[in-house]
């Protein structure tokens, strides 16, 4: 091995292939049958359970845990999938510590919630391992629906529509389906190609055709889709990335964190993936954590997350922050980037300390510099390529509670649409609910 964490610049192979493989191993291994039974025993089967209310897809959590406890994980999986067809991915990537598990009464009682996420994974993995698909299609309706974007919202909508008997075509700008499940998210959360396996399993319902490499505005127009299909569901995500708006941002090796993550997820050989020695990630959300931790796992010597506000404002949960710091990532808060320095490529990034005041965030005037050969921007994504004529609100396609946009016959959901947090599970809920509304209006 020629490179090490101390090798200057942006290089591949800082760690041995074995070390990298170990680092990117399933970071929360699945429960085995015994562990699942012990964990399931802890559920109190609450009345009108708070965990269920906290779940954006309203999975009947007490019921599925009871089904695990009584030795029927396949029935548990069906309970999960009937509300959330991507329950397998959500079991891996949901920030359960701020959703169901935060609401668990045993969190109140003992500070140790029932391990809902891991139990969900046990159930869904058990069923999916059998290679069976638990749902079948209703009688064909003869209706056709176009779904634009094969991420969680699009796949969820497509599945529900197919189940109702409609024929669905899902277009996606990328070369394969999955959206952020495939191109975003940390690799160690969804190992062994799970995202693609899940798509394949989901498509077993039938009646769904995936059309990859077709982007709205480039290869498709909304007007054409409206003409050719009985309904259109837009789940195009947030393709743009916010800028730092600091001088020097255009220097080499200053790039969006999502691009780094996508490259990593699609890399067949992580040992060939270049990573800096001194990586600075700007932002405070899950993307920042995913980018920072994976940089560290690839062998970067120094990885720092810098967030402009206080720690309590970080969108990444306490659990995620702890995961980052235990991986060796340093988190600096109350510091905003003011300049990127370097001769061609970034060498240093300069920050100003900030403080929250009643008048907003203010720079204190004191600055500091961090050595950086790589700067990853994770300060939020923006809506780009939204078709003309759609009402937009707060940078997102405006929708009502059932996903209807301002145009008749066009629905939207997922990160590109208003409402809810930008989470996989929220996208699944929005896709499902829009599909129900599309179905109702097509059959009316």
């Amino acid at each position, binding site marked *: 091995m020629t490179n090490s964490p101390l090798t200057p610049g942006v290089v591949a192979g800082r760690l041995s292939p074995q070390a990298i493989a170990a680092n990117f191993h399933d970071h929360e291994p699945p429960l085995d049958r015994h562990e699942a039974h012990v964990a399931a*025993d802890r559920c109190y089967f609450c009345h009108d359970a708070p965990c269920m209310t906290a779940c954006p897809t309203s999975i009947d959590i007490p019921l599925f845990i009871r089904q695990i406890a009584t030795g029927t994980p396949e029935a548990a999986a069906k309970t999960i999938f009937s509300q959330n067809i991507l329950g397998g991915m959500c079991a891996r990537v949901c920030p359960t510590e701020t959703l169901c598990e935060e609401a668990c009464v045993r969190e109140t009682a003992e500070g140790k919630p029932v391990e809902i996420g891991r139990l969900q994974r046990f159930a869904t993995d058990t069923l999916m391992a059998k290679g069976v698909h638990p749902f079948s299609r209703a009688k064909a309706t003869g209706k056709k629906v176009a779904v634009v974007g094969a991420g969680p919202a699009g796949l969820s909508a497509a599945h529900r529509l197919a189940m109702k008997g409609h024929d669905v075509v899902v277009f996606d700008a990328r070369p394969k389906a999955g959206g952020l499940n495939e191109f975003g998210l940390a690799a160690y959360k969804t190992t062994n190609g799970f995202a693609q396996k899940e798509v394949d399993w989901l498509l077993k319902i039938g009646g769904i055709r995936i059309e990859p490499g077709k982007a709205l505005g480039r290869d498709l127009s909304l007007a054409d889709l409206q003409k050719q299909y009985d309904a259109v569901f837009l789940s195009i995500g947030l393709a743009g990335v916010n800028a730092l708006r600091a001088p020097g941002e255009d220097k080499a090796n200053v790039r969006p964190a999502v691009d780094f993550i996508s490259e990593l997820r699609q890399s067949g050989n992580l040992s060939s993936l270049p990573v800096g020695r001194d990586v600075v990630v700007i932002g405070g959300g899950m993307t920042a954590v995913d980018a920072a931790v994976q940089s560290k796992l690839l062998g970067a010597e120094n990885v720092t997350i810098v967030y402009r506000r206080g720690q309590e404002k970080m969108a990444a949960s306490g659990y995620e922050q702890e995961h980052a710091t235990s991986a060796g990532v340093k988190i600096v808060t109350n510091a905003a980037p003011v300049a990127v320095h370097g001769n061609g490529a970034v060498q240093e990034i300069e920050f100003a300390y900030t403080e929250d005041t009643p008048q907003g965030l203010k720079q204190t005037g004191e600055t500091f510099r961090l050595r950086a050969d790589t700067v990853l921007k994770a300060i939020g994504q923006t809506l780009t390529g939204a078709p003309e004529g759609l009402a937009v609100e707060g940078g997102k396609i405006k929708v009502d509670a059932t996903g209807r946009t301002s145009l008749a016959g066009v629905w939207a959901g997922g990160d590109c649409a208003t409402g809810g947090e930008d989470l996989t599970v929220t996208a699944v809920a929005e896709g499902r609910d829009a599909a129900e509304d599309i179905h109702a209006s097509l059959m009316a």
Partner: protein
Amino acid sequence: MANLTSNFIGIKSPNPFWLASAPPTDKKYNVERAYEAGWGGVVWKTLGSEGPPVVNVSGPRYGAIWGADRRLLGLNNIELITDRPLEVNLTEIKEVKRKWRDRALIISLMVPCDEDSWKDILHRIEDTEADGVELNFGCPHGMAERGMGSAVGQVPEYIEMVTRWVKKHSRMPCIVKLTPNITDVRKPAEAAKRGGADAVSLINTINSITSVNLDAFSPEPMIDGKGTHGGYCGPAVKPIAMNMVAEIARNPETRGLPISGIGGITTWRDAAEFMALGAGNVQVCTAAMTYGFKVVQEMISGLSEYLDDKGMALDDLVGKATPNVTDWQFLNLNYVTKAQISQDDCIKCGRCYAACEDTSHQAIAMSADRTFTVKDEECVACNLCVNVCPVENCITMVEKPKGWLDPRTDRKVGDYANWTTHPNNPSVQAAE
């Protein structure tokens, strides 16, 4: 540390915890290990007549039911009496008793129901120096099919007859072990007393099928595709056993007859409860079979602490609750309590609400923010909410003072009055 020395019908032991006649007491090796662990006494696993020993199945002998986290709550068995040669047992009993003089050693016996068989076995055990005998009239499986065990225990006349033979042919203290597989446990206890028994011990195991194999469609434990009822024991049977102990303790015909309490005793608290109901000592099996002999150490320390806290001697505890076991008709119908939920302790699981709303008296209100409160005007104080609440002492029953107006009945809490004088009781004669 309170003195736990026990004297049960003249049999002394350093504590009142004996191992019941069962697999833990079937040989010298086990019994010595039990004594080393601290058990006060053992009842040696039941001996039969001389001759070829009984044969056990070579498939599974035990079945079980479990609570959360696979905690064993009930165990059933289809094992028979000792399957070791009589001479081996007698030799070992003698060796053990000589070595462990301060511990109690009782021999459990089960032989055919004729006087010669009993005379013979009593003669054979004479020079073991054992402290007493326990007559196994309880075993509900296998041996009962051969006219022994519970087949005897279910017929009070047989109990009396055999007990009389035993007292006639032996000077050893005699304990009669009773089966619970009977309608009224007072009858066999009365028969034992008439026959001259020094004590009764109860309960033996309960007829049971613990599970059915849903692939093979056979009861479990399954022997080559078939199963038979076994004897049920463990924590699950404790309430049944305690009622039977109390029934004998408060029965005028058997009052004062010493009782060795058996049935699901797992902790010092279980033992104390049996003793408070009238048991002079207790016998344990399933707890040892589940956790090993060491469990006795918690029983010893726990009972000592309890007696110290109460300032009581062991003998003071025996029967202390017996006078408070009464008939329903004597319960105070003017005693009023209401459930109260501690909001500080509540974890908002809503189980009390589900239980009360779905299955009881619709006496718990649930607010939008999941605050649960008791509606006094609906609460009949049934205690179901207390029992389903996962947090101990979060819901409590609060006794209402005399004169308090119960909004459910619109009546004030009055003086003691029971069913025997209640106006709704058709048996009450109106005063002329």
